[in-house]
Every structure is written in C-alpha cells, then in structure tokens.
C-alpha cells in the first residue's frame, strides 16, 4: 500500500479514493443505458492507457492499435465459440499473440530505423493488412462475421464472461484500475526512465548507453500485450466480430483521441479524455435530440469542432491543466 501511495499528496489520495468509491457505487443508481455508456468510457480509458505506454511514455506514435485489439478479440472469441474455452484462458493465449504482433512490427521498424510518421504509417499498414486479410479468412467466417453464442439465461458467469452489463462494468473498471497501476509502476521504474529519455531525445539516450532498440520494442510489446485484454473484453461484450469494424482505422483513431485530449504521458490523461469525449458525444446527441434537430452528421461536426477547440486552447491536454487547477500536481507531472 505504501508503494502505491508513494509521493502522492494527501489531497490526491482522498480525491482518488472518492472517485473510486463513486465509480464502484454508480451501478446502484445508473440505468442500463447509462451503464453501457460507462462501460464504453472505461473501455476507451483502458485502451487509451495501453496506447499511452507507447506514445505517452516512449514517444512512439501507433495508429494501428486496432490490430492488437482485433487479434486478441478473434483468438479468444474463436477459442470460446469452438471449444468453450474461458476468456481468461483465452487471454493467456491472446496476450502472447498481440505482443508478438507488436514485437514483429517493432523488429521490422526499428531494425531499419523507421521512425516518426513513417512508423505511424507502418502501424496503419499492418492493421489494414489484417482487416483485409481477416475479411478473406474462412476460419473466422471472413466478412460474414464471427458470432459468440449468447446464453439464454443472463446469469452472471464471471468465468465465461456471460452476464448483464453491470458485470462487464465491474470487470472493465477493475481492468482500468489495474492498467493505471501498471502504468504508474512502469513510469516509476528503470524502464520508464529509459522510455522518457528516448521520448525526449533518442540520440542522446543512445549516447548514454541505453539500448534504444530493445526498450522501444519493449514499449510496443507491453502496450500490445495490455491492449490484448481490451480485445478479449470487446469480443465477449459485443458478442460479434466483423473485420470491417474491429480492425477499422477509425477504431484505432477513436481510442487515441482520449489520451491526447486528456494529456499525453500522464496517468490520468486517458481516463479524463475518455470521460470528456464520451460525455461530450452523449451531451451532443441529447441536446440535438431535445432541439428536434436530427440531421445526420450534425453531431459529428460539433464533435470535431470541440476537438479542434480543445487542442487549440489546451495543447498539453486537459489533465495537466486540471491538475494545476486542483493543485494535485505538486510541481511534477
């Protein structure tokens, strides 16, 4: 416990505990629809956290995280559908699969010094390659989609991840907390400092003797491995997988908007970003519906304008600004 609260101010600890208590109690007052919105928020916060390990910590821009989500989703979904294997066991297979996809991409990219924008495009290329490939892959029923059997009686079964939205809410909440703790542990460890050094100046990092190839690869592998759980969750929460949806580039993009808006490289950025963006989206839907204004696309135009506004006004993200305002940063990030 002491290791967890190390160098956190008393004020931050109280606020964090209060936040967690609110999140734990929310299902008692929220209706089913609100629960599904909360699940979506926490899902985005979780993947955002995983993506942040690469971009926020090590400075590697990935625009293809849908690849890791999709591979894990398909593997665990297939194992459950054909053999009735629990998603938790499926996760044990999915993590190595996503992580080795990440390892392969980073090996190829960093061997040949593919960096910056080129690296980002390479990650898109692999995700798109998988999308079209899975569209033509018979074992996962191609573009016809993979459907997980849905139980007739919706009793909570945590082992097989079959149950009502509330169960999924607690699962993803726990995962989000674990991901935040993991990120915090990584950031305070030796490898975390290496990542920050690489992010700030790769040449200088190499000059001080850091094996940049190795630690950049580690960032991708860990990020991909953490993302794998999101894929398993996706498969069992939505119960259907289409390559066109799972691997779509817009999936990759929507999961990274949160961390950037929230604040890159910060622990709470992904969480704050996910809440803000999904909240904004819901607010716009509600407002437009109340005004009787249901032009397709209107909501998205406003959403895009809000995004534009936030990055123009708060280029460093919302969380660093908020933390300063709440006096939580104590002079550090």
């Amino acid at each position, binding site marked *: 416990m002491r290791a967890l609260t190390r160098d956190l101010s008393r004020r931050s600890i109280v606020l964090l505990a209060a936040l967690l208590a609110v999140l734990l109690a929310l299902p008692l007052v929220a209706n089913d629809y609100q629960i599904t919105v909360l699940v979506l928020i926490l899902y985005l916060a979780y993947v955002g956290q995983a993506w942040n390990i690469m971009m926020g910590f090590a400075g590697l821009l990935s625009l293809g995280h849908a690849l890791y989500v999709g591979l894990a989703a398909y593997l665990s979904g297939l194992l459950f559908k054909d053999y009735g294997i629990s998603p938790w066991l499926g996760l044990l297979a999915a993590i190595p699969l996503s992580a080795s996809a990440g390892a392969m991409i980073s090996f190829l990219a960093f061997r040949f010094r593919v960096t*910056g924008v080129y690296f980002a495009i390479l990650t898109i290329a692999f995700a798109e*390659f998988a999308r079209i490939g899975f569209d033509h892959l018979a074992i996962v029923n191609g573009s016809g989609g993979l459907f997980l059997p849905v139980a007739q009686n919706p009793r909570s079964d945590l082992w097989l991840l079959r149950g009502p939205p509330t169960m999924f809410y607690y699962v993803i909440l726990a995962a989000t907390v674990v991901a935040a703790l993991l990120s915090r542990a990584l950031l305070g460890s030796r490898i975390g400092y290496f990542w920050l050094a690489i992010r700030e100046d790769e040449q200088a990092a190499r000059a001080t003797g850091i094996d940049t190839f190795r630690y950049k690869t580690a960032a991708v592998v860990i990020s991909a491995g953490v993302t794998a759980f999101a894929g398993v969750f996706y498969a069992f929460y939505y119960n259907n997988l289409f390559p066109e949806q799972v691997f779509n580039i817009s999936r990759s993009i929507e999961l990274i908007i949160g961390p950037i808006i929230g604040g890159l490289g910060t622990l709470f950025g992904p969480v704050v970003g996910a809440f803000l963006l999904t909240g904004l989206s819901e607010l716009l839907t509600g407002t437009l519906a109340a005004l009787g204004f249901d032009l397709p696309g209107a909501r998205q135009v406003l959403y895009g304008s809000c*995004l*534009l506004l936030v990055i*123009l006004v708060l280029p460093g993200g919302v969380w660093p600004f908020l933390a300063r305002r709440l006096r939580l940063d104590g002079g550090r990030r």
Partner: protein
Amino acid sequence: MPLDVYLNVAISGLLTGLVYGLMALGLSCIFGVVRIVNFAHGEMMTAAMYIAVVLFQAFGLDPLIAMVPIAAVLFVFGYALQRGVINSFVTRPESTQFLLMIAIAIIIVNALLITFGPDARGVQTSYAYDSYALGPLIVDATKLYAAVAAILVAAALFGFFRFTLTGTAIRACADNHTGALVVGLDVRHLYALTFGLGAACVGAAGSMLVLLVDVTPALGPAYTLLAFIIVITGGLGSMGGALVGGVLIGLTEAIAGLVFTPSAKSMFSFAILVLVLLFRPVGILGRTAR
C-alpha cells in the same frame, strides 16, 4: 486468360495510377515543405469531387474544365487553413498535429454528409463510354483524358517549383527552415502557399477522379491512406516519386483485382508499402541522405 486482357487491365491501372499520383503529389508537397502530415487529404479530395458534381449538374460543366475553378477554391481553402490554424502547430508534437488534422477531417466529412446526404453521386459525360482501339488494346477515353490532365497539372507544378523565384524560395524553406528565415523569406506565407498548392493538386485530382468513381462522403479515409502509400512508396519530397508511386500502386491494384478478388486488391498496396518501408524507407526515388 489471354495476354491482352492483362495488358488492357494494366493500361487502365496505369492511367488511374497517374490520377492517384497527382493526388499524392499534393500530400508530398505539403509534407515535404511544411512537415505536416495532412490526414485530411482524402477528405479534401472528396470535397473537390462534390464541387465537381455540383458544377456538372448545375451548369453542365465538364469536370476537366471545372478542374481550374475547383483547384482555385481548394487553393484558397488550403492557404487560409495553413495561415489561420495549422501554422501554430508546425512546431508541436506529431500526435497533436495528427489530432488537429483528424478534427478537420471529421468536420469536412460530416459537413459533406449534411449537405449531400449519404448516397453516391457521379457525373455522366458524353464521352463516358468512348474508347480508342490501339491494335488489340482498348483504351478508355475518360481514363486517358484524366491521365493526360494529371500529367499536365503535375508538369505545371514541377515547372513552378523548378523555374520560378517563389518556387525556389519554397524549396529553400523545405531544405533549411532556419536558413530560409535568415535570408529573410516570409516562411509563414510560403508555407501557406505550399499548403494551398497541395490542396489545389488534390482538388484537380478530385475533379478527374469523379470521372472514374462515384463519390460518397465516407470516401475520404481510404484515399488518404492511398495517398500515403503512394507518397512513401515513391519517396517523400520527390515529385517524380509521387507519380511513379501512383502508377505502381495503380498497376498493382488493377492486376491484383484481376488475378485475385477486387476486394483484396488494397492488401497488395499495403504489402508494397511494408516492403518499401522495410527495405528502402526513403522510397523508390527518394534521396538517401536527408
């Protein structure tokens, strides 16, 4: 399958590839000089395609003529966008620039959706079904005209960068930003000019492409990706490279669509991209030392 089928498909792919190349040329200009990755490139082209459709339907204006005013409109749009919004992001991290362009892309796509609805629109020219016979080969007239127009626009742009004072100044900015500032060049204006020219390129390409494919608001991302593939394959910052890359990708997609299934054709473009990134990251015609 007889050989002339392959040849016909290859020629069709080559001609389409030249139009792709012009589209990618715009992206290459912008990235080569301003160092901003224009993730709204395909969306800007979609907007140009809609303008072409509207001009055709309202005034019967042939898209190959409408190309001139459309390029002008896109130029003004690009200039204003760079001057007003993007310029303050030039020194920001890539991820922030990326998000900025994504926000702009979201706004363009959905503004188009509001204005034109989700249905596909196209133009029906009088020469839509004409073709020229060259021995055993049949060349589609529309594709031929579009490709010739693409070459002309690319040549004009090449001439501008090569032989005019402003073009030389822009190349100076691309080579050495600080140096350009030191000798007193108005870099902000030149950046905006470059973004405008890139937008004009994609505008012209959109007017040609509307002859070949129907337009829907959701077309953008696929063409943004296509432009990336072409630019990286050909070599970023190399103007000839964009055209060569365009032709290569056009050919690959056409042949792959014939040999395998059309729905798998972009897989081969991505495969080419991966190979190029791995074995020649500067692209086919890119300069080795940067």
